[in-house]
């Protein structure tokens, strides 16, 4: 099984898209009632100064139904997931969750996944973790791995085929 199965399979992908669309529509309905554009979320946003992310504008765009525009924009990938916007919103709107739903939608729509996400996902599929044991460098430039430090064996899925079968169900599942 490869990343293709999870992210851009023909039929299951349309199920996933439908599910995400329902979630976004539900979020849209909710925030239309609640968000009053006070911008408290943006004032504390960790990605605001550095990457010009403005969560209150994301909410405003969703409120206006511009889901496609959002899904296609790079800005949704600048969130640092610090969760401050969710914590501090006086109206219990959670821009960070809207951003997660939008990114999931971008992936389900077959958009290119940025950066190292693909590699991490492939590693999870093949051995259960985002990466295998790495060599590490000490202060004195020695290289070491976990067993040389006396640490016990890595905990990871024992039967990879069964592990993949479980994940496969996410890709295949009919909602």
């Amino acid at each position, binding site marked *: 099984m490869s990343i293709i199965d999870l992210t851009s399979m023909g039929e299951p992908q349309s199920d996933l898209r439908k599910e995400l669309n329902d979630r976004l529509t539900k979020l849209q309905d909710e925030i239309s009632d609640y968000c009053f554009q006070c911008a408290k979320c943006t004032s504390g946003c960790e990605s605001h100064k550095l990457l010009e992310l403005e969560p209150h504008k994301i909410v405003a765009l969703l409120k206006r139904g511009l889901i496609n525009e959002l899904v296609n924009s790079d800005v949704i990938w600048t969130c640092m997931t610090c969760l401050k916007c969710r914590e501090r919103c006086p109206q219990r709107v959670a821009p960070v969750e809207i951003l997660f739903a939008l990114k999931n939608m971008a992936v389900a729509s077959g958009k290119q996944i940025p950066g190292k996400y693909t590699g991490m996902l492939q590693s999870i599929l093949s051995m259960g973790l*985002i*990466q295998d044991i*790495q060599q590490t460098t000490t202060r004195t430039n020695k290289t070491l791995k976990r067993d040389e430090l006396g*640490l016990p064996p*890595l905990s990871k899925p024992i039967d990879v085929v069964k592990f993949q079968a479980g994940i496969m169900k996410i890709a295949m599942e009919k909602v």
Partner: protein
Amino acid sequence: MKKKYALFPGCLMPTEQYAYELSIRETLPLLDVELVDVEGFSCCGEPMKSVNQLLTVYLSARNLAIAEKHHLDVFAPCAMCHLALSECQHILEENPAMKERINGMLAAEGLNYTVKRQVVHTVDLLYDQVGIEKIKEHVKKPLNGLKIAAHYGCHILRPSEIGRPDDSENPQKIEAILKALGAEPVDYPQKLDCCGAPLLANLPESALTKTGQKLQAIQEQGIQGMVDVCPWCHKMFDSRQTKAGETVAAKLDVPVLYLTQLLGLAMGISGEKLGLELNLSPVEKLQLGDVK
């Protein structure tokens, strides 16, 4: 009374952030915490949340179900893992349909999630389960008023509505632990700033800028060092400190340790056993024990 937990290592700590694992395994058993190694755990799923949130819930539920099979509560030292597992419990408890759906998938591995078990992180494990008094009893080499900044990490503080190890806006548990060790915790305006790690996957330059900005602020305030409690935060502040300095055009030299390393040093454990040789920031500046 002895506490017993499955040690849920996650991905980053057991594959590269060895100093955290070493210092956890050295210190906690001396404080009557029994750590059980369990086979078969996988990624918590949090790193995949931007790609597919259902995958995150599934992977977390899978790990919780493994702990459940062994009748164990869970100790997750990584802030990301702790959030993923806690949020998964919250979702499955609130949403029976989702629970059924996830259990249907877990059947592929003969697993099943039924009950909510305790999931702790380093901070609440030390503060609430072990307790400050017991920590004080074990301090053999008090830290002589060392001025230390605490970095909590976003994911153990928020969202408070699902229950987090410390207060979302004014966390104080690490400070209380530092005091018990004889250090002087320093309050600083950037305390709640993010380490930047969640952007490593797709915007590494920006991620490191965030790291550099926080370290620079700490350095400028004359604080002697920083402690953290998450392998992602530590990867940024310690392992990548030199690179982070380049992004803010500063020569950074802030000693950064895992809280459990500083705890171990105060308990009289050697720097070697606590993995201090793996810290790449200038920890020797703190002149603690045998740390070179």
